[in-house]
Structure formats: structure tokens, C-alpha cells
């Protein structure tokens, strides 16, 4: 969180009122900084217009792994140290596929997890930037930056309260 910002926090009790207020606020041109929820809500994820390319990244990790694995096995079994196994050819390509599949899956998993950790800035022991401690339990939080929310504070407060917010309060970042 950037220092000394003034925030407006809308607290909602359930998914339905949150989504309602969120969509109405967006329609009125309110700029929403972030939404914190106990579980993923797809209206929010699409409404926030954030995009993730983690699936595309995973595809390219897979491609990279396949090329490296088949290349590596070919190098080891044909070029570097060819061995006779019961008269089989050195390049036994179709049976390379088994290792390729398994090791590709492993590579994709590890690299995608690493990407997730780096991009979401999530790692062991990280201190959480908690806005409202109840957001991981039972509250749904909309966070607005008071300078950039595109509407006056009383109007937003009223909009939230009219749409079922259980609390609206101000918070300064530290």
C-alpha cells in the first residue's frame, strides 16, 4: 500500500449485496481501488477488469519443457552415450513420450506456481496488508481511494448504504 492515502471502506455482509453495490457503483462511474472477499466472486473478478496471463504463461512453460526434454533425451541416448538395450534403436522416440509428459507437467506446475508467487507478490512469511481483518472471514470489502474515486465521499457513502452496506468507514494507510 502506498503511504498516507485516505481510503473509504465499504463493508458488506453477503455476496449478493456486494455484487449489487459494486455494479451500481461502477455504472455511476466510481473508480474502485480493490475488492476483498472471503472467496472468489466472478462478477467482481470480471468487473475489476484485471487480466491474468497465467494460463498463456503455463502454455509456453509446457512448450519449453517439451522441447528441452525431447532434446535432452535425444542428446543423452543418441549423441552423448548411445547404449544397446536388446538391439533397440538408439532413438526410441515414442517411448520418450512417457517421461516427456510427466516431466512437462512437473515443469508447468513449478514454473506456474513461481509465476503466481511473483506476480501476486505472495511468498512465505510475507506480512499481510490487511484493510479489514474480517475480509477473510465473513465480510465483503470494497476499497476506494478518496482522491481517485471519481465521486464525492457523501454520495458514495449514500450509494453504498442504500445498497446494503453494513458499514462505511474511512481509513488511512500507514
Amino acid at each position: 500500500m502506498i503511504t498516507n492515502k485516505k481510503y473509504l471502506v465499504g463493508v458488506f455482509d453477503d455476496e449478493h449485496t456486494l455484487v449489487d453495490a459494486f455494479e451500481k457503483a461502477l455504472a455511476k462511474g466510481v473508480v474502485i481501488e480493490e475488492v476483498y472477499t472471503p472467496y472468489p466472486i466472478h462478477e467482481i473478478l470480471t468487473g475489476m477488469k484485471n487480466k491474468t496471463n497465467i494460463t498463456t504463461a503455463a502454455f509456453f512453460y509446457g512448450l519449453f519443457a517439451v522441447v528441452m526434454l525431447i532434446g535432452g533425451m535425444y542428446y543423452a541416448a543418441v549423441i552423448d552415450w548411445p547404449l544397446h538395450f536388446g538391439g533397440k534403436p538408439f532413438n526410441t522416440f515414442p517411448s520418450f513420450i512417457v517421461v516427456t509428459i510427466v516431466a512437462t507437467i512437473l515443469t508447468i506446475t513449478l514454473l506456474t506456481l513461481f509465476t503466481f508467487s511473483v506476480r501476486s507478490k505472495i511468498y512465505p512469511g510475507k506480512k499481510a496488508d490487511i484493510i479489514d481483518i474480517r475480509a477473510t472471514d465473513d465480510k465483503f470489502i470494497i476499497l476506494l481511494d478518496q482522491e481517485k474515486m471519481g465521486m464525492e465521499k457523501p454520495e458514495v457513502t449514500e450509494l453504498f448504504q442504500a445498497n446494503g452496506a453494513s458499514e462505511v468507514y474511512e481509513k488511512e494507510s500507514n
Partner: protein
Amino acid sequence: MYKTEIRGKLIDGEKSLSQISQEILAPIDAKTPLWWYIAMAISLVMFAWGAQSIYVTLTQGIGTWGQNSTVAWGWEIINFVWWIGIGHAGTAFSIFLLILRQKWRTAINRAAEAMTVVAVFCAALFPLIHMGRPWLFFFIFPYPNTRGPLWVNFNSPLFWDFMAISAYLLISASFWYFGMVPDFATIRDTTKSKIKKAVYGFFAFGWVGSSKEWLRYEGLAFVLGGIAAVLVVSVHSIVSTDFAVSIEPGWHTTLFPPYFVVGAIFSGFAMVLTLVTLMKKLYKMGDFITENHVDAVCRILVFISLIMGTAYITEIFIAWYSGSEYEMYTFFKNRITGEYAMQFWGMFIFNALLPQLFWSRKVRRNIWVVFAISLFINLGMWFERFNIVVTSLSKNYLPASWAAYHPTWVEIGFFVGTIGMFSAGVLLFFRYIPQIAIAEVKMISKYNTQQTDHLKPGHHDYE
């Protein structure tokens, strides 16, 4: 969409979101019950016996086992395949039921995944110790070495197995762990204990539940889920090729990969049933793991049991239809009848016939009968592996080399040790980790009430 009116409620009792967190986290916050210590002590004694057996094996050699030059694979490969099979259900639960949009999986997948990780550890011990010099196990790994470099044989199913098991262990553990991150954050934010706050806070990776986090988290789950589905099928297919690519009668068959994969999921689901019964009864998780959940697992088991029965009969039919006298001997003289008939019929009755009781709603709703059948299925699946490994090896093509196989106390101790390790692992899981995926249960809690009525139609049908 889960039809509550047809399939029954996913969560019993009208629970608020915070009640869901509290009730699932209760075992972590409460004082450890006495039975837990007793169960842990028993597990550790079993584990100690296992450790002693491993010590004997390592100091005196594989000769302390009952194997001989004919039956070169005994209890170790049986137990290895058995544990890997049990380990299959976790990923199968998470992935296949996710793909099929079965919302009831949310109450059970965490336990299933925990079981997977512990079971795969138990499984991995057997080939490791069987190597004789386990400290040199890294020779299996293809790394540039000073012995040539001498590479591994990339066509060997044993190398495939090594790759499959290590990949499966790493992937299922990371899949399990990342599923727990939001729940650890819930513990961090709700607990009153400072130590718990610090410890679970460390493992929560700074999770706050922002939309950016959830977006990438969903992307990650999609990727891991998609590729791990392939892995579930490939791991046990590879285990089956350990057998199927050899030319032993009873092993050399194309039926093996699907037969092994289905069998693995069968035994794993049975073990899941054993565990959730314990969670329901010992930890009062009955509101989250309802009769409907148990019912759903039983329905899957009855279906898989029919596949198992078909596979057993197909094997016998093909042995006869092939006209190969070795195949016919193995199946008709050494399995259905002969000195190993008890194991064959144990397998057939426990796996193919007994689960047919699940056709009855009364049986599916009686938790103790379900519990007993789940244990019998696990026993039956052990017999199946015994039946495959020992019968084919003990009487092969050359009658002069026929030999019987009996396990020694060292082997029995080793197996008991892994059971102790498994139960100790599961007990630790019960005590220190949320047994049910809290965030996921919260997500499905809306399907429980009439609340869905005022949501836009077709708008909320997601996982």
C-alpha cells in the same frame, strides 16, 4: 448447477459465513482430545516397528525379506502399488469432480488431498528401501555425472515410475498447499492466539483475498487442475506398465493401464470414505460432510466396482480365449483355484461384489455399514495387488524354478510402519490444518438457501 431439492443440502443447518469458519476451525482452536494422543501413540509405535524393520533391512540386506530368485517382487511392490492407489483419490477428487462441476467435492477434497500426500510418501519408501543402497538413489536421476556420463535408460518403466512418483508427489503437495493459503489467512485473521497468528500468518503467504489475488488464484487452479488430470491417469498407467511390458503370464496385457487407474481411484475413494467417516464422527463435521456427501461417494464406488468386476472377468475370459496354456494355467490353476485362491476370492468379493450393497439407499445412509465396506474395499484392493504380483511370479514358464513366497517379519513390520506413518500424518492433518476447504465451502453455501432465487438467472453458475 447443483440441485439442492434433488440431491439434498450441501451444508446442514443455516450457517453464516463466520459460523462456517468457526466450526471448521474448531479442532485447531480446541484442546487436543485424549483419543488423539492415544491414536498418535499407537501410530508412533507402529511407525517405530517400521523404522526398526528398515534398520534391519539396511544393515543386513534384502535377504531379510521373503523374496527369492523366482518371486523377486513381494510385499514391497504390493504395498507400493497399494499406497499409490490410495494416493490417487486426492487428485482425482479435486480434478475430476472440479471438471464435472460437482459442488459436493468441496467438503471432502482437502482431506482427500492430505491423504494423497501422506500416502505417496508411504509408497515412495518401498522402492527406495528395495534399492538396497538407498543413499545412492540419485543414480536414477539423469544428471551429468562422472561415470561416463552414464545416462539412465529412458525406455525403462522403472525410470518412468521414478519420474511419475516424484512428479506426483510434488504436484499434489503444491496443489494441496495452495488450496490452503486462503484458509491459513482465515486462521491468521480470526485466531486469538499470538503464536497461531504468527505461524499460520507465515504460511498464509500474506494472503488478503483481494480480487487480483483471487483472479490469479483461479487461473492457477485452472492450470494445475487441467494438467494434474493428465497426471492422475498417467501415474498409475505407468505403474501398470511396470508389469504389463514384461512377458509374465497374467501381466502381459493391454487391459492393465485402465484397470490399474480405475482400481487406484476405487481404493482411494474407499480410503476417503474411511477418513470422512472419522471426521464426521470424531470431529462432528457432520454438518459439512452430510449424508448426501457420503451417498455421493458410495454411488461412485458402486459404479467403479462394476468396472472392477468387468476387468476381473475380462482378464479371465481373455486368458481362456487366448488359448495360451500359460495364461490359462495362471488364471484357472493359480488364481481362481490353487494355493492363492483365498487372495483371489478376497479380491473378487470385496471389490466386485460387496460394494454392490451400495445400490440400496438404506446401506448408503448407514454410516457404520459404509465405514465397514470402505475398510473391506481397501483390504480387497490389497489382495488384488498380491494376486497380481505373487501368483504370476511364483509359477512362471519353467516349473523347475517355481517357488512359494512368504513375507518375513521384517516385511510385515515395514508395512505396519507405513500404516503408522499414514495414520500419524492424518492425525497431524486433523489437528493442525483446516480439515475442510473453508473458502470453497463458503462459496457453495449460497446454494443451500432460497437466496439463489433473487440472483440473476444463469449468472452465478460457476465453481
